[in-house]
């Protein structure tokens, strides 16, 4: 009954082809085609979502496969429609649509618009295909399509060598994760004989070492795509592309795909305690790790990039906590909370990036140190960004609050059950909340408050850019509350048993728990500190670097914990070292042996040539030879080169050995 | 895994590397040095083969005397610079 869902994925794909073929001749470089296709996807996916919800009577998950098609051998392609994928499709197509409209203004002056829109819609198609894939191979294909598009889009301004390097880095780093994912998928196929996600979820991996290894391998793929530690290094550089592309990667596609992969393989993760604990630890660590690096960045987009890594860490953390609780046989809202946060984050992060894009568009630089005082000049952008920052910090009633609180609550519950280590991660989560609020408002105050510091002449962006901002700002405000109004996000997406709650119960539960106030306090404290330091400037920001420890920390953070340098060094020295050594070995040793044996052959040839010439001579003069019996003549048959003799001797030896071998083995 | 075998393999690798180095070294003196290495490891292999006496002779005669002879030969036939 969901056959029409194919249209959601097909529309951008068709648009991709159309833009390639006709884009050059349309006025906006094919923008109209792109937006029409994205609009189609959006409308159809909304219908689909409504139908899915209607079927499932709010909460009961629907899972249906449509459009099956035999590709190669036993592999059957198709779409898997359930609550999660339907929600993701709505989200992705909506955000891509908004970003596409925004691009009309942002990319208006670029020369290669056709290329931009073609890659843009293909990227969207990749994400939509990933979320709707019914088997892991199809999943992988669209997943890699996204990788390709991210490469092309990050390197969109390829003349800039930073952009080209960033694109290369993004592709390489995610490729490492993808390879591990590929092994994981093959391991699943080898043990279950199928790629089909529904079947795999239902059957689970049989007990044994693979039960732990496979979810870890799948998670490695997610780590690469979602930029989690230790494969996070590509995301901060990925902002070298156009800002709209950053918004696309951070909010709607690419990094969210990693979270989605963990959600898709949730039953497998939840079957293994080792995997769940790894997921929690990576998520929790990445959250605080990335937030710390955001504290010292001066590039407006880089701050947002770190914040994405950190927020994705939250989602992964929530999924891991849920998996751990499931593994122990408890019910958990963690899955729901993570998906909830995914949705909210998508809205406010798209908002933040597009607002940042608007700022960059206006002032022509990324550096926050030369901005300031933009509030009076660009009111809409400023207010929109404020909404985004409040949502990111988790201040009620903005969206980030509800979901972040739910995730931390889950982690705390897991901590109560499994002891100190998880409580520690919960504390890290709360500290992250503090840091998040601090850097979010540091960004806002540095950009919009106070006086202009640099030589810039800002102006408000055109309406085609501000309207999307307004729409997203509205969503950043209400998307969290909407779920509360319908009685909890669990009615939309859930895993395992359904969770029925009413609005009032939910609110009571949230606002009577002391945990809520702890996180809230952390966030407010972060905002307060940022206000004091960067807005009122009561305390100079120099205070952080006044001590040697502070300076050391700053240096460490600005150098991103030296991980980039370490990876780079590894690639340059170890990778290239092996490559050079292999090249040397090939040119000198292997080829040396070949040439050496050629020389040997020549030597033998020369020797035998000499023997032959003189032998032929000898045949002619043979009689004279015999008659005179001259020792001189006999000696003349030899070249006199001892090495030629030896070479001939060795050849003879081999022949004798060969004959003996054949004789001894019974002959042919 | 028997330790004997481990020792043997280690010695064999040194042996092979050493003898390749003998053949491929650019400088004669290096060749002589590698020859000594090869011969000494060979005596180690004899010990593994439980032929201690041969090993001793090898060490005395071969590893001790032969490289020295070679060095003499090299010095006496040196012409200007080495090959």
């Amino acid at each position, binding site marked *: 009954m969901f056959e029409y869902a194919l249209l959601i994925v097909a529309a951008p794909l068709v648009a991709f082809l159309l833009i390639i073929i006709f884009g050059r001749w349309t006025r906006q470089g094919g923008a109209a085609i792109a937006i029409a296709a994205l609009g189609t996807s959006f409308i159809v996916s909304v219908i689909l979502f409504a139908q899915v919800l209607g079927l499932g009577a709010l909460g009961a998950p629907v899972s249906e496969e449509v459009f099956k098609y035999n*590709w*190669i*051998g036993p592999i059957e392609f198709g779409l898997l429609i359930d609550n999660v994928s339907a929600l993701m499709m709505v989200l992705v197509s909506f955000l891509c649509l908004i970003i596409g409209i925004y691009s009309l203004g942002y990319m208006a002056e670029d020369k290669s618009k056709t290329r931009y829109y073609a890659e843009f819609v293909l990227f969207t198609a990749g994400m939509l295909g990933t979320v709707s894939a019914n088997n892991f*191979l199809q999943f*992988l*294909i*669209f997943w*890699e*399509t996204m990788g*390709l598009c991210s*490469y*092309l889009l990050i*390197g969109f301004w*390829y*003349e800039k*060598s930073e*952009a*080209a*390097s960033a*694109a*290369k880095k993004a*592709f*390489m780093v995610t*490729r*490492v994760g993808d*390879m591990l994912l*590929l*092994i994981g998928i*093959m*391991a699943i*196929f*080898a*043990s279950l004989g199928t790629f089909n996600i529904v079947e795999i979820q239902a059957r689970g991996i049989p007990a044994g070492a693979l039960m732990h290894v496979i979810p870890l391998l799948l998670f490695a793929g997610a780590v690469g795509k979602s930029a989690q530690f230790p494969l996070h290094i590509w995301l901060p550089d990925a902002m070298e592309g156009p800002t709209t592309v950053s918004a696309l990667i951070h909010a709607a596609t690419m990094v969210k795909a990693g979270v989605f992969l963990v959600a898709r393989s949730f039953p497998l993760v939840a079957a293994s305690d080792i995997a769940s604990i790894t997921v929690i630890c990576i998520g929790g660590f990445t959250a605080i790790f990335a937030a710390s690096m955001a504290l010292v960045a001066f590039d407006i987009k880089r701050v947002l990039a770190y914040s994405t890594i950190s927020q994705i860490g939250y989602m992964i953390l929530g999924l891991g906590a849920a998996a751990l609780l499931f593994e122990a046989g408890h019910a958990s809202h963690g899955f729901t909370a993570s998906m909830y946060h995914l949705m909210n984050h998508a809205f406010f992060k798209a908002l933040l990036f597009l607002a940042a894009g608007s700022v960059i568009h206006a002032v022509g630089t990324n550096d926050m140190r030369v901005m300031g005082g933009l509030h009076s000049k660009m009111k809409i952008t400023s207010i929109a960004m404020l909404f985004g920052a409040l949502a990111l910090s988790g201040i009620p009633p903005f969206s980030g609050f509800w979901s972040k609180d739910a995730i931390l609550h889950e982690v705390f519950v897991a901590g109560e059950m499994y002891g100190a280590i998880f409580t520690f991660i919960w504390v890290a989560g709360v500290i992250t909340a503090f840091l998040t609020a601090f850097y979010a408002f540091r960004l806002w105050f540095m950009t919009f408050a106070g006086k202009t510091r640099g030589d810039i002449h800002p102006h408000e962006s055109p309406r085609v850019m501000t309207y999307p901002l307004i729409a997203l700002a509205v969503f950043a405000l209400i998307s969290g509350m909407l779920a509360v109004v319908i009685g909890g996000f669990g009615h939309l997406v859930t895993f395992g048993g359904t969770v029925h709650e009413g609005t009032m119960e939910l609110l009571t539960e949230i606002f009577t728990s002391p945990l809520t106030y702890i996180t809230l306090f952390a966030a407010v404290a972060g905002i307060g500190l940022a206000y004091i330091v960067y807005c009122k400037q009561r305390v100079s920001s120099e205070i952080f670097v006044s001590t040697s420890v502070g300076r050391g920390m700053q240096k460490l953070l600005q150098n991103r914990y030296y991980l980039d340098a370490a990876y780079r060094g590894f*690639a340059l020295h170890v*990778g*290239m070292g*092996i*490559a*050079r050594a*292999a*090249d040397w070995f*090939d040119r000198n040793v*292997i*080829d040396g042996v*070949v040439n050496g044996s*050629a020389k040997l*052959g020549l030597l033998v040839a020369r020797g035998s040539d000499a023997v032959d010439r003189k032998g032929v001579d000898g045949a002619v003069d043979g009689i004279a030879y015999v008659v005179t019996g001259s020792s001189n003549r006999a000696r003349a048959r030899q070249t006199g080169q001892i090495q030629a003799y030896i070479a001939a001797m060795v050849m003879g030896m081999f022949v004798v050995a060969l004959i003996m071998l054949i004789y001894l*083995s*019974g002959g*042919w | 895994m028997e330790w004997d075998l481990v020792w043997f393999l280690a010695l064999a690798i040194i042996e092979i590397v050493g003898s390749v180095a003998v053949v491929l070294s650019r400088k004669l003196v290096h060749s002589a040095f590698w020859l000594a290495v090869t011969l000494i490891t060979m005596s180690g292999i004899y010990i593994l083969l439980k032929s201690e006496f041969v090993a001793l002779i090898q060490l005395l005669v071969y590893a001790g005397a032969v490289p020295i002879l070679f060095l003499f030969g090299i010095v006496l036939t040196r012409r200007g610079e080495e090959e």
Partner: protein
Amino acid sequence: MEFPILSLLLIVPLIGTVLTIAGGKRYAKWVSVIFALISLILSTVLVLHFLPDSFIAFAPDSTGRFFAFEMYSWAPSLGLNYIVGVDGLSAPLVFLTQLLVLMGLIYSWKKEERPHQFFGLILLIGLAITGVFISLDLFLFFIFWELVLIPMYFFIAIWGGPNRHYASIKFLVYTHVGSVIMLLGIFALYLSSGDFTADGARTFNMILYLEAAQTDPLFLQMSLQIPLFIAFLFGFGVKMPMVPFHTWLPDAHVEAPTAGSVILAGLLLKMGGYGIFRISLGILPEATKELWWLLAVFGIVSIVYAAFICLAQTDLKRLVAYSSISHMGFVLLGAATMTEAGIAGGIFQMFNHGLITAVLFMLAGSVKHATGTREIPQLSGLAKVMPKFSLILIIGFFASMGMPGLNGFVSEFLVFLGTYKMFNMIEMGKLIIIPLLGIIVTAAYYLWTLHRVTLGELKESLKNVVDIPRHEAIPLAILTFMIILFGLYPTPVLGVIWPHAQGLTGLLGGP
């Protein structure tokens, strides 16, 4: 009698060769292209005939399992026959041969130095390679196998680069040594063939061997099968080429003219792979079961070692040459797995690699024509002045590194799947990490090259470069289209290959 389509595939290029060379410089390209086109149409008809019914299953009937079968007695007293036929293994390769020959001809449209001989020799090479793929008599097979060397030698030695004499001699001698050892194997087979034929007469008829291997895999004693396997493996391995018998390839490629490289990498290497599937696996199944690890080790070493070497190359053509070695490693690995997916993937990889590497070598030639150099450090930012070139380069590189949606992925994935199954069976699953490392290195060197060649700032010296001319763009476009087509929709080729892989798997009885 059936329409002798395969004999025509041999006769048409032969006439073409003679006419092209005799016709002189003026008409050379037109005559040769027309004859190549006829061959391509013939082979297309052949392949299309194949598609509707998946007939290739190893039927017991000796003539029924090969399509377009022809058999004429030649020297009955020696057991020599003229036998040709195609099956799921050879049909895609025959098609590929005709395709690449035509593309090579079009690509070299503007050749000015002795064009009639140049085009004639291309046709002759195509003929010889087709002969290798279709002949089902070991002696005939060997004749064609050797026949390939001669025109190729002249090709490199006459139209090659500055170091052509060294390269051509090295190519000839090296591959010839491999052939001689293979010839020993063929004679050994022949001498022992009296034991299993019905009338006790010795024969070169390959079909009889294939049948005997099916009815009784031990039709040759193990003490004979194993040395035979090794002899054939050496012969095919040099051709393929597998590390450490590969050093003729980079030299030959760097010196050969572009059309020569296309045929060398696209087709000549496939002869080795074809031999492995046809003879090593098909005739010596028991030895394969015993020595599959040899194939696997050589395959894995080729994949990883050559990939690392690519990372250190500065000459674009040399890089592509080494990447060929790396990718042909997948063919060996696929054969070693003895699983359906692995074998089908290996055969398909040969087909795909033929398309991809042809594109890459043509691009290397084009960049040399356009800028005068193939040295990667001297190039930069070409995307700005050569957009067509850059687009095809990106597609070719990504196809080669196994990007889903392009054909390289399908075959490599199948090979990995087979490998995983195989190694999983013997509890060595960890080993699969090694070729995957090769994949990551592959991605690294392609991306790095792409970065250095097309991206970044345009160098001052390259400002006036023009994009690829039309006669080079046409074959590139056709091949790129096929790369994408078979990436998205591999069924036509895989459907032909798969039954053959099933047959081989059944024969090997592997896991």
